[in-house]
């Protein structure tokens, strides 16, 4: 026995001696609460870590900057007076690439989610227990591991190397996925890394990591950002960035991992302030602060009837909206955003005026655009959506229209049994319109029309039932990242973001059932990244993305059923109904997409649910592309016969608006392209729009057995581009 114990103890010792880690691991603890600071410090000391405490985030940051190698791990509180914990987290991630653990007494889902999306490697709930701290060293190890793996793979094509895969996936994922996906990806990373850790525990010695850690100083990061901007975010591959940066000693892997983080970071940014100047005027975003008063729920019909918001109102609203600092959203929050209905109050006709008959019940939400034209239908109101489960598009009665306007993330309170909540935010969400919806049950429709959104990020999370979410963000200065996640049922999301400067990242992840995603993003300079992921059932994602300068990359992935993908989306499954409205501008998207679409359509045989999407894309010609995409009204009919109609309406900019609506009737019909050369056409006649709108309404109301969305095609099935008058004109 004694021999045994001797052996055991000596074995332990030998294990410990050569590799003392995690003993002595250097932890920086940041918390403004002195009591908690003392307690956690004591616990860490008892774990045999080296602890440095700091009660101010700013001080912590300077400590970190001064001594880059001084710490292995950072633990930080979320709520601090001088700097938000998440901000610290971001900065640390970008500059120092150190693992950061967040702590908080606030354990709400959205807070934890925020941590995840900002790159925290863990989240501790206060009061922190000793057991939780004992294993935190794993985060240090894991990170070093992943880093070394990247190095090993330098220059090589990705292989089956797990780490590589993980990295690749994350790179890809991070660009296209929303927060939800990020968490998924993060989990995957975690799992993968863990396994690797287990296997190689003996060899781990963090202190002798192969690669010297790169410190991303402010200057270096700036060089990086310059390079990325130069290349264009979608073209920014590590290799090219590296070349452009031309920093000796910097490896591709360093850049790759930094790029990944950067993408994550961008996604969360609320870039309201970053409207491209060109767009500003036309973009909603530029404005001001019109704060949409909170409107109660209005009957959709009434709303529709009431008309649109007057331009002034809209402008005012926009101003208000814009004036608000962007909120960082990225996570679905349980806090429901305040829905405000500006338009309702106003009852004025939107500048659009025009004929766009938006009175259709379906569309709700008037887009408020600085320019005005917001089809009443813009809102992707989903009234139809509300009819989940046999939805009837008619939105009548249940539709609630609420304009959602949010300077900050707003969540729509889930209504239990409410058929439809239509929210329209006519106004531009100044910063990010982050809508987070959480629906526990029942259908919830959220319409967000934000004309200007520096970032329209909507996160939806639906526990079940249907949650249609429509976001119309007219202008997205920055990126519009919308992510939707539905646990089940129908999920309709329309994202329409016109993104001028940046990219629209839309990520949709559907747990099952049908999900409809419309993403109409017009991206002028950059590209919209759309990705949708559907667990099952049909997912219709139509992405209308027009990228003027750049291209759109959209990808949808669905495990089964239909996934209509529009432009740039890869159709993975046989069932795919692609509807997209794309206005091809300079990019020659059309032809290929058309073809693709048609091909897809043809291939869709199992497509039980025809999805017709009318997407209206408005693009303004000229330098400033203010696009408004109308997201198509998509009605997804769930295989089970439920469909959700998601009309999406884009904000139409006054100037040139190209409103393209592609009605999609069943298979094969849909695509209407309006392509007008460089000049985006305002050709899409408003008139044209009108019809679709009408159609949309109708279609949305269509509750056919198969949830067919009939979109009368404005352009006809052939997707002929109709040249019409400029939207602006017509709207005027």
């Amino acid at each position, binding site marked *: 026995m004694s021999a045994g114990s001797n052996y055991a103890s000596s074995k332990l010792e030998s294990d410990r001696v050569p590799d003392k880690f995690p003993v002595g691991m250097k932890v920086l603890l940041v918390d403004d609460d*002195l*009591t*908690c600071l*003392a307690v956690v410090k*004591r616990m860490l000391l008892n774990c045999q870590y080296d602890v440095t405490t700091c009660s101010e985030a700013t001080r912590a940051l300077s400590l970190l900057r001064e001594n880059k190698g001084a710490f292995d791990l950072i633990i930080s509180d979320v*709520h601090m007076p001088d700097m938000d914990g998440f901000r610290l987290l971001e900065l640390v991630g970008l500059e120092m690439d150190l693992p950061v653990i967040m702590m908080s*007494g606030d354990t709400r889902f959205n807070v934890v989610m925020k941590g995840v999306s900002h790159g925290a490697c863990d989240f501790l709930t*206060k*009061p922190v*227990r000793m057991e939780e701290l004992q294993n935190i060293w794993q985060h240090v190890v894991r990170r070093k591991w992943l880093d070394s793996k990247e190095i090993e793979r330098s220059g090589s094509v990705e292989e089956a190397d797990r780490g590589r895969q993980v990295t690749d996936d994350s790179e890809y994922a991070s660009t296209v996925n929303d927060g939800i996906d990020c968490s998924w990806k993060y989990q995957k990373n975690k799992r993968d890394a863990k396994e690797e850790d287990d296997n190689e525990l003996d060899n781990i010695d963090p202190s002798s990591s192969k690669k010297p850690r790169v410190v991303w100083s402010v200057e270096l990061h700036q060089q990086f950002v310059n390079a990325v901007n130069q290349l264009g975010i979608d073209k920014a591959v590590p290799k090219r960035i590296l070349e452009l940066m031309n920093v000796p000693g910097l490896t591709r892997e360093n850049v790759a991992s930094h790029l990944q983080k950067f993408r994550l970071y961008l996604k969360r940014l609320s870039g309201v302030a970053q409207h491209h100047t060109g767009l500003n005027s036309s973009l909603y975003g530029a404005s001001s602060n019109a704060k949409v008063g909170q409107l109660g729920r209005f009957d959709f019909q009434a709303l529709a009837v009431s008309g649109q918001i007057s331009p002034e109102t809209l402008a005012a609203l926009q101003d208000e909206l814009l004036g608000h600092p962007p909120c960082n959203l990225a996570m679905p929050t349980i806090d429901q955003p305040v829905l405000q209905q500006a338009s309702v109050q106003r009852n004025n006709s939107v500048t659009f005026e025009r004929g766009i008959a938006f009175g259709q019940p379906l569309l709700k939400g008037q887009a408020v655009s600085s320019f005005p034209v917001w089809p009443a239908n813009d809102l992707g109101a989903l009234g139809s959506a509300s009819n989940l489960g046999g939805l009837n598009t008619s939105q009548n009665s249940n539709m609630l229209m609420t304009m959602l306007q949010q300077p900050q993330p707003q969540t729509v309170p889930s209504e239990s049994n409410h058929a439809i909540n239509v929210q329209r935010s006519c106004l531009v969400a100044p910063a990010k319109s982050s809508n987070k919806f959480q629906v526990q049950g029942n259908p919830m429709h959220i319409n967000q029309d934000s004309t200007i959104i520096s970032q329209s990020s909507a996160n939806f999370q639906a526990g079940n039932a249907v949650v249609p979410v429509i976001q119309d963000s007219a202008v997205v200065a920055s990126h519009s990242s919308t992510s939707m996640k539905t646990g089940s049922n129908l999920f309709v999301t329309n994202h329409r973001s016109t993104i001028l400067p940046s990219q629209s990242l839309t990520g949709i992840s559907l747990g099952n059932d049908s999900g409809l995603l419309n993403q109409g993003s017009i991206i002028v300079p950059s590209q919209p990244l759309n990705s949708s992921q559907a667990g099952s059932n049909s997912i219709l994602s139509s992405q209308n993305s027009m990228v003027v300068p750049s291209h759109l990359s959209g990808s949808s992935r669905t495990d089964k059923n239909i996934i209509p993908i529009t432009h740039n989306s890869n159709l993975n499954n046989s069932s795919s109904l692609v509807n997209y409205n794309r206005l091809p501008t300079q990019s020659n998207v059309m032809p290929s997409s058309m073809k693709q679409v048609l091909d897809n359509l043809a291939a869709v045989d199992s497509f039980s649910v025809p999805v017709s999407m009318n997407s209206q894309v408005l693009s303004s010609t000229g330098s400033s592309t203010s696009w408004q995409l109308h997201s198509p009204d998509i009605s997804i009919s769930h295989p089970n016969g439920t469909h959700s109609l998601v009309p999406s309406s884009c904000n139409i900019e006054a100037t040139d608006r190209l409103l393209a609506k592609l009605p999609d009737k069943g298979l094969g019909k849909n695509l209407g392209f309006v392509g007008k050369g460089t000049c985006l056409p305002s050709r899409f006649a408003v008139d044209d729009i009108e019809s679709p709108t009408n159609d949309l309404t109708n279609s949305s109301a269509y509750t056919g057995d198969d949830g067919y969305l009939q979109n009368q095609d404005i352009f006809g099935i052939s997707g002929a581009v109709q040249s019409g008058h400029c939207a602006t004109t017509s709207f005027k």
Partner: protein
Amino acid sequence: MLPLCSRVLLSHPFSPMSLMALREQLNMLVNSMYIEGLLDQQFQQLQMLQDASSPGFVAEVINLFCEDAERILTELTKLVDQAVVDFQKVDAYVHQLKGSSSSVGAQNVKLACIQFRQFCEENNKDGCLNALNVVKHHYYLLRNKFDTMLQLEQRIQAYDSKQQN
């Protein structure tokens, strides 16, 4: 040795209590605090953290907590007293207090803070006024007991060091 109870009976409040008696008293006090909900499991963690290398740990944490709490309560009293209450600010302070009370294991105080936050969210001034009083009530109750606890601890430690000398 006499059984403990006898010893306790024999000891006079002002006469020096034996080390064991002191310890006994301390334990009884702490136990009663657990039972009455003044303290929760987190306090146990603190107790466990105190050892030879950090003999004054619990006292240190308690002191930090009390300082913090009193500062916050003062602020809160001012804020809630105003004609127009800035609920966000109030909420921020209550959140702080909630955090520190949870770190030290002050259960009743923590729960009272949670309630308080509810009222803040509802922008309910009266509710806040009441809630503040409840928090204060629990806090001062706790503080008294902490004072006794710390005194006992000090005496115990004095005993120990005396004995070592």
